[in-house]
């Protein structure tokens, strides 16, 4: 969509963007460029000096099997948390969109998870899913060892994924609902006249028509699994057991901030940033091309 009506002014637009540009330059670009520099040097933790090493940090990262395991794990985490959350949110949105009596109540509750911080949810779920206490503890009493995120890496990953998925239901739900409500009602009515029952209309009409929203959410969710998983993992597992819940962001934090390997972490940051930028570009091409109805 191109605008037609613009203002012409040489100075004003720059004055308007100045505050944000300044903030972004100071708090984003400056630090980021510093990290970029570290990626090509070996930076002493205490800042005493550094040594230019070219792409050594990158080759070290890429030749580390554990790094690739983290990449794969991030992908699994990203895809499954996204899938679980979106499927649940979409299902709820589809049914809420039917607008039956009392729906408003459900609708408002479904947004709740949005309000919660990852650490809070992490703490709550850690308790709920703790193998010796809480809810799941009961299950373990019956079948000992069936659920043990403390020692079983797979269980731990599942736990974090469930929690992440739950946490983003609210956000996804709101956007799905918004997308559904933008579909003109007459399209559903046309479907009804064409003989399609509600379930069929969901599949044939509503789902394809919210494809742009779905795509938008898909990318946003995947980005969020890269960027927002930190607090969750930090409160739930701290990357363990044995690094089995260590995703890319966490590993960067772990290696850099905790492991004092600023350079290796910086190289990883750059890889991560490139991935996220790539995803965002793909997404952007789509957001701008929403379906226009009639």
């Amino acid at each position: 969509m191109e605008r037609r009506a613009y203002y012409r002014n040489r100075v004003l637009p720059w004055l308007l963007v100045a505050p944000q540009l300044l903030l972004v330059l100071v708090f984003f670009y400056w630090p980021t460029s510093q990290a970029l520099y570290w990626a090509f040097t070996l930076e002493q933790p205490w800042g005493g000096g550094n040594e230019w090493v070219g792409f050594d940090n990158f080759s070290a990262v890429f030749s580390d099997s554990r790094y690739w395991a983290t990449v794969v794990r991030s992908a699994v985490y990203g895809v499954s948390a996204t899938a679980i959350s979106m499927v649940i949110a979409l299902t709820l949105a589809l049914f809420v969109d039917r607008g039956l009596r009392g729906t408003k109540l459900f609708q408002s509750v479904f947004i709740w998870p949005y309000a919660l911080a990852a650490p809070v949810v992490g703490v709550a779920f850690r308790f709920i899913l703790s193998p010796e206490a809480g809810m799941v503890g009961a299950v373990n009493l019956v079948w000992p060892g069936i659920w043990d995120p403390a020692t079983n890496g797979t269980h731990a990953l599942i736990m974090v994924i469930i929690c992440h998925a739950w946490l983003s239901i609210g956000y996804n739900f709101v956007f799905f609902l918004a997308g559904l409500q933008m579909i003109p009602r007459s399209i559903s009515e046309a479907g009804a006249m064409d003989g399609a029952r509600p379930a069929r209309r969901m599949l044939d009409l509503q789902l394809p028509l919210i494809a742009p929203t779905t795509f938008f959410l898909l990318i946003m969710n995947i980005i969020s699994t890269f960027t927002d998983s930190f607090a969750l993992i930090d409160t739930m597992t701290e990357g363990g057991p044995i690094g089995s819940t260590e995703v890319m962001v966490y590993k960067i934090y772990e290696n850099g901030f905790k492991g004092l390997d600023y350079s290796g972490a910086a190289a990883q940051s750059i890889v991560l940033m490139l991935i996220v930028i790539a995803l965002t570009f793909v997404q952007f091409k789509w957001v701008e091309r929403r379906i226009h109805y009639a």
Partner: protein
Amino acid sequence: ATSGEARTKFEFWYGLSGDLSERIQDMCKTFNDSQADYEIVCVSQETYENNLQNTIAAFRAQKHPTVTQISDGGTLDLMLSGAYVPVRELMEKNGYQIDWKNYFSGIASYYSSPSGELLSMPFNSSTAMIYYNTDALKAVGFEGLPKTWSEVETVARAMKAKGYECPVAFDPTGVWQWFEQFSAIHNQPIATKGNGYEGLDAEVTFNKTKFVDQLTWIKKMYDEGLFVHKSKAVGETANDAFVNAKCQITSSSIADHGTFGKQAKEGMHWDVSMLPLLDGFTRTNSLVGGASLWTLKGKSEEEYKGAAAFYAFLAKPEQAEWWSTVTGYIPVTNSGFEAMKAKGFYDKAPYKGRELAIASLTATPPTEYTRGVRLGNFNAIRKEIANAMQEVVFNNKPVQQALDEAAARSNEILRRFEKTYQGKALN
């Protein structure tokens, strides 16, 4: 205290939390109340690791505290940082006379430069111990306390048979007690070059020492249900399990002796002992644990004066005694220890047993492998070993393979560290 205006404020960051953190706050208050010139601001950073990380970040930003508490493992990181003022120099400059010889040799050797200069102020020193629930021991008919791991195995088995769910609490992230101290008391090397004391090019060797057998044994114990996993991750730490009498044996720092005394379940009886030995070994001294206080560069003379005054305050016998009383940390000087012993401090509960920590630390003069560990980014190496222990225990990875891998990764860490500090030497 007098008006805040005139006082020089300086910060002290430390890595203890909970009960121990509250004691530090008490101590800071005492210091502030004791004189009118300085005001120390004590900030808890929760854990040693956190404190090291935050201190580094702050130092890079030139917003660091004057004094920071760095644990044993972070010593080399500090030594090479060039970011500190050696404590001896600081005290001398500010006119305090300290008898450095008076410090336990194990402690001095851990925190000194190769030339013997003490770099940081010894503060909360500890070593690893083993704690027993004596009720449980009695129940299985064991007299006294087990002194060897095979005795531990025997009593654990007996306890299990008696219906105790958890004979030994095992926290696989407890690398310090299960690995480092084990290696020390059996005089096993952790790394070449005298555990790194002789150069940054040291390589770890733990995959070739007695530790391989020990881990194999731990795995066996775990599989039989004699060792039970207790950690933060399961929602109950080994120490919690011990004070709640859920687990009967735990290995932990002497520092926890005070806490256990306060938290142990009512009516529960327990005791502490030096770490058990493998059969056929004689004990060498254990490593000094805990942490020391480092004075960071880039502060004003006034602040340094304050820091020096604070150190002098810590070194006062009555202050050292108080600290050892309310925590389980040992007195760090020979004279301090002797004085307390003479007072009969260690003769009765609740302090009885703490003298064993000193006995452990001073069992023999420090050897090449027991004077300490000088490895770069040692926290990261500890993490590798913790991972290896978990791989073995939880995922049934063959012991040798797990330790070989951990050693390989540890050596990578060391090489990276060496390269980062290329040209720098230990001095």
